[in-house]
């Protein structure tokens, strides 16, 4: 597989006088797991927010090669990006804590369901087509609940789940939008080694299902093992791009990481703080 699913070209993002992302270009191939790594403040999350439409880039292009052809994401409104097949999770988990696990997954299928209701009008009268659509939606939700081992918690409020389960639920919810590209923002943060391991398996399962994955991660163990391609950012610029083995051997990458010392002790720059 060598067709790109996502092309990022000369992406620039400035906050006031600060350039958080400076002429970054990379491709994510269809069916691949592409990781974006870098020390804190390197601009990883900003790149993510640009791709998923939470920020508008100061310059540059982001092209999605989705099922409906090319889509320039840099000029697409936030919620339409999700509709064109890009789903994401958040570094600080963003669930609907007061809604049940199942409800969370149904909200993710809002657009499909809403279309089946003739935009709300038909549903009020209980049209059969809506009931059919809802059954299908529940079936899809059930599938992802099984995949994330949350089926027994389906009727519990999302906010009551343990941390690791909330992370999995967020991924399940993103998958319920039927994305072609799943963007995961530090999915392993705060997980214990066993949970990280399970997460890696889940990601690979998703990839086998045909969904490409873009991943920001600090956990180098996970990144190096499951990624097909790694993009390294530092100070808002791309410093390396290649297979895990290539990147590991790259001197600029080594110095970027060593130069920063223990990355976890470097205080987050304001830009990364906006994530």
């Amino acid at each position, binding site marked *: 597989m060598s067709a790109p699913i996502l092309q990022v070209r000369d992406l620039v993002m400035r906050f006031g006088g600060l350039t958080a992302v400076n002429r970054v270009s990379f491709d994510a191939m269809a069916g691949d797991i592409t990781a974006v790594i870098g020390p804190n403040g390197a601009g990883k999350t900003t790149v993510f927010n640009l791709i998923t*439409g939470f920020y508008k880039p100061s310059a540059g292009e982001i092209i999605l090669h989705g099922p409906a052809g090319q889509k320039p994401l840099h000029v697409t409104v936030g919620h339409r990006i999700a509709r064109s097949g890009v789903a994401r999770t958040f570094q600080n988990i963003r669930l609907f804590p*007061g809604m049940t696990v199942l*409800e969370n997954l149904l*909200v993710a299928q*809002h657009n499909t369901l809403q279309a089946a209701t003739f935009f709300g009008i038909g*549903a009020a009268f209980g049209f059969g087509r809506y009931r059919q659509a809802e059954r299908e939606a*529940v079936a899809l939700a059930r599938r992802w609940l099984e995949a994330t081992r949350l089926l027994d918690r389906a009727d519990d*409020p999302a906010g009551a789940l343990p941390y690791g389960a909330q992370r999995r639920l967020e991924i399940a919810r993103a998958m319920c939008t039927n994305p072609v590209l799943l963007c995961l923002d530090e999915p392993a943060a705060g997980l214990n080694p066993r949970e990280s391991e399970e997460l890696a398996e889940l990601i690979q399962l998703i990839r086998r299902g045909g969904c490409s994955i873009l991943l920001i991660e600090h956990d180098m163990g996970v990144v190096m093992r499951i990624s097909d391609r790694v993009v390294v950012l530092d100070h808002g610029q791309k410093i390396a791009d290649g297979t895990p083995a290539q990147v590991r051997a790259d001197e600029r990458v080594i110095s970027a990481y060593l130069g920063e010392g223990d990355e976890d002790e470097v205080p987050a720059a304001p830009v990364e703080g906006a994530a």
Partner: protein
Amino acid sequence: MSGASRLPEGPHVGGVPHNDDGVPEPGEMGGIPRGPEAPASRPPVVHALRDAGLAALVALGLFVPLVGLRTDVGPSGGGLILRTRWADVAILVGIVFAGRLAMNLWSSLRPAGRPRTARRTAQIARIGTFVAPLFLGFAVLMPLLPWTTRYGLDLGVLVLTYVMLGWGLNIVVGLAGLLDLGYVAFYAVGAYTYALLSTTYGLSFWVCLPLAGIFAAFAGMLLGFPVLRLRGDYLAIVTLAFGEIIRVVLLNWVSLTGGPNGISGIPRPSFFGLSFSAGGGPGSFADFFGLEPSPTHRAVFLYYLILVLALLTNWVTLRLRRQPLGRAWEALREDEIACRALGINVTNTKLTAFAIGAMFGGFAGAFFATRQAFVSPESFTFIESAIILAIVVLGGLGSQLGVAIAALVLIGGFEAFRDFEEYRMLVFGAAMVVIMVWRPRGLVSSRKPSVALGERKAISGDLVGEGHG
């Protein structure tokens, strides 16, 4: 009322605490009464006395000028004269002392408050399933009960109007989490729509009712568009301003609205073309059914009319909650950013909430106009919005039953004080404060899931979001 004992155990989603609780409270507060959690070394009674004494001292400072020294316009019409009322001050200070003392002793005797468990939440929800049909049964049967007086009927109409308004606003505030302090504007739009269309074009109530709803819904969208990006208190203040603008326009656009004099002679509704005229002439309700003409007929009719309208509001809300739209509203209340990431059009979702909530306000307004046969800007002041919002929040956001109970308690209680005209707003305001302090989440805070694989378990209010918009 100790601050520390009320801190909720908020859900720490994603390891990020959602609320700013858990603030340590070092040190005494410069002689300020600290409530019962202060030093254990001192005997509780001594502490309680000291604390109550301080409270009494504060009360003395508060009441001496405003209660003790009453100003009145002098008999000659010139300057003000003073009248002293030290006895009243003494009584008030005494009440504060005794009240504070009782409160301190009570909380030092009572064991530490037990946390509300999931079981209790479920219990409350179960009680709700019994209470709701009971209420409904009573509401349906009330006009037929032999001991229902005309006054009781009118009170019922009033309470049901507020129940309907509360349910309408509940869509906006409770479900979508959008704080609206100008809801009365839509009530006014509905009322004036009916008043103007019926007096100018002679349209009947049944034609005007949907029109009133549509106009109000448009007003809702009109408000919704500019405020989409605003959050929280900013949204509240802008909606408040919107409500005031509508009122000031009604007050000053004399050629259309009659200004402060309002519009009178608004036609009363008819029962499928049968009027409720007091004379009982041909074509009247009494004549058709061969009844003795009685003003009670109209009252009963109005009662059932508002009951049906209120139940319609409730039915649509419950229905929508189980639809994608309703779920999107609730999701919006929980986390707007996550909604966007899931491809939900946040703008449209908010606008529909504003529009549908406003529509029911419009219906209620049309009903108000036809019941009173008179509308003027005076009926649509900010205090009305505040009362409706208070009903929603005191009842419990999103809870239909809670809103109905809150309307009954607040409006019924308010009426119960009608003999103390002067004091009833004072008591009303105090009740708002006390209920909020006692139950910040409202009477019924739990949320029922809209869909489930197995059993639908009530969700504790502590987990349910409150909206940021």
